């Protein structure tokens, strides 16, 4: 949710003489970077003296840039890589892809088995999501937990990194085994959303473990024993999975604040 600073706060921000506490200054600056409307409002609040000073500074900068050395190339890729890729996830994602590969292979060798890719698809992202924000597995957890960015946004960013690997792997596995793409990906997304939603209440790791165990006991084991896919994975159930995904994602969004509060279940 985006909260715009009030016009009074923006006016005080523009006024160098105004007493605005520094944390509020930061909040306004971070907001201004992404909000063109508030930037325009700020420009309207700027005094003539400040505009004249900015013009002088801009002219001086232009002169110095022309006279100075060529600027160093910005390491955009490096920054993006560090923010999106979480290196401690690599072994877990490798394991997930390997298990899916084994499922495809086993399916080819034993065509009589129920679709192992369908059975594994819901739980495929769970190890990655569980590890994504885990005190035990993230070496910098202690540092990051005390920063303002720790919260749902960080969890979603890391979950997106997990899905960026798991979804293509599932898509490839479904194409190799002839299973409906929707019936592979929608349960995957639904369980991801369920993990985050439940994680807001009991912690993501515990939620992932609980959902994985419940799915295995309630669906995977009976399906392997009876050699039949359960109804929830048969054609026609896609709509239900899509609806469930939306409901769970909406619930998780309403519990976003839980991820920023102190808790004892991280």
């Amino acid at each position, binding site marked *: 949710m985006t909260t715009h600073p009030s016009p009074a706060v923006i006016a005080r921000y523009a006024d160098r003489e105004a007493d605005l506490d520094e944390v509020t200054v930061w*909040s306004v600056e*971070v907001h201004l970077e992404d909000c063109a409307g508030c930037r325009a409002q700020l420009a309207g609040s700027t005094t003539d003296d400040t505009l004249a000073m900015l013009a002088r500074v801009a002219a001086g900068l232009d002169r110095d840039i022309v006279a100075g050395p060529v600027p160093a190339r910005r390491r955009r890729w490096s920054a993006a890589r560090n923010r999106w890729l979480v290196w401690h996830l690599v072994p877990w994602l490798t394991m997930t892809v390997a298990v899916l590969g084994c499922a495809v292979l086993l399916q080819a060798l034993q065509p009589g088995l129920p679709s192992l890719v369908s059975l594994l698809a819901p739980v495929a992202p769970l190890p990655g999501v569980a590890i994504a924000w885990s005190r035990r597995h993230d*070496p910098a957890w202690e540092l*990051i937990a*005390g920063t303002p*960015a720790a919260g749902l946004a960080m969890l979603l960013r890391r979950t997106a990194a997990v899905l960026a690997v798991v979804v293509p792997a599932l898509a490839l596995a479904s194409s190799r085994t002839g299973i409906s793409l929707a019936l592979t990906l929608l349960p995957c997304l639904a369980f991801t959303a369920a993990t985050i939603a439940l994680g807001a209440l009991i912690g993501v790791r515990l939620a992932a473990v609980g959902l994985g165990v419940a799915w295995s006991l309630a669906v995977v084991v009976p399906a392997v024993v009876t050699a039949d896919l359960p109804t929830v994975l048969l054609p026609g159930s896609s709509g239900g999975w899509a609806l469930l995904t939306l409901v769970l994602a909406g619930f998780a969004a309403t519990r976003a604040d839980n991820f*920023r509060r*102190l808790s004892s279940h991280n």
Partner: protein
Amino acid sequence: MRTVSAAETVPTTYPWAVHAEGLRVRAGRHVAVDGLDLALGTGVHGLLGPNGAGKTTLIRALATVLKPAGGRLTLLGESVDGRADLRRVRRGLGYLPQQFGFYPRFTVREFVEYMAWLKEMPKAAVPGAVQRAIDRVGLAAKAGSRMKTLSGGMLRRAGIAQAIVNDPAVLLLDEPTVGLDPEQRLDFRELLRDLGVDSCVLVSTHLVEDVVAACTDVVIINEGRLVHQGTPDDLVAQGGEGDAGDSPAERGYSALLRRHRAGAPR
């Protein structure tokens, strides 16, 4: 552009940067901080105590990593409890944990940049702040080196750099001098004195000499309770010839602990 310094408003916006009343914090099942009363303002506060006194648990609670189990904790004028949205408070914190975890593939600059991003600093302020922080800890020559190639002392200095990159109003350092050689420790004392001019700095250490040399205030805790709070001169005045220790300050520290354990009035 306005100067970004979360520390500037500490003395004027609230009476204490850190205020605890009857604070209780659990470390696992054990109550490590038990009914602690503490008030810290601008300056450098040395936190002393024997092993198991609750120093690290206290610092983790102040860093908003551990949830208080009881009592009241106020940081930068805002109450810290299970219902608080900590984003605003965390923007004003800097924290170096005792167990300093990091991503080994990051360079020093990438690591400090990453932490600046997690602390939600304005994008435009990040490059300058990162360079300043790296310079202040004397790691400019190693800014491009990967974290995994650094020595223990250099890692500690990189940890201090990430803690001060946002110019925090409350800086929490848990055993920051571990791994530093004598010359680096002298430089670090100088840095501490500099940081304490306009910030509230709490330094946990076993080295009484560092506290006497660099701190304006000494806090001693034992068994999760406050034993003593006063100036280094007060600490020195507590010791006598019969107390253990190689220096007057160490003898004062020993005397205070001995009296506390005996239940004698301070």
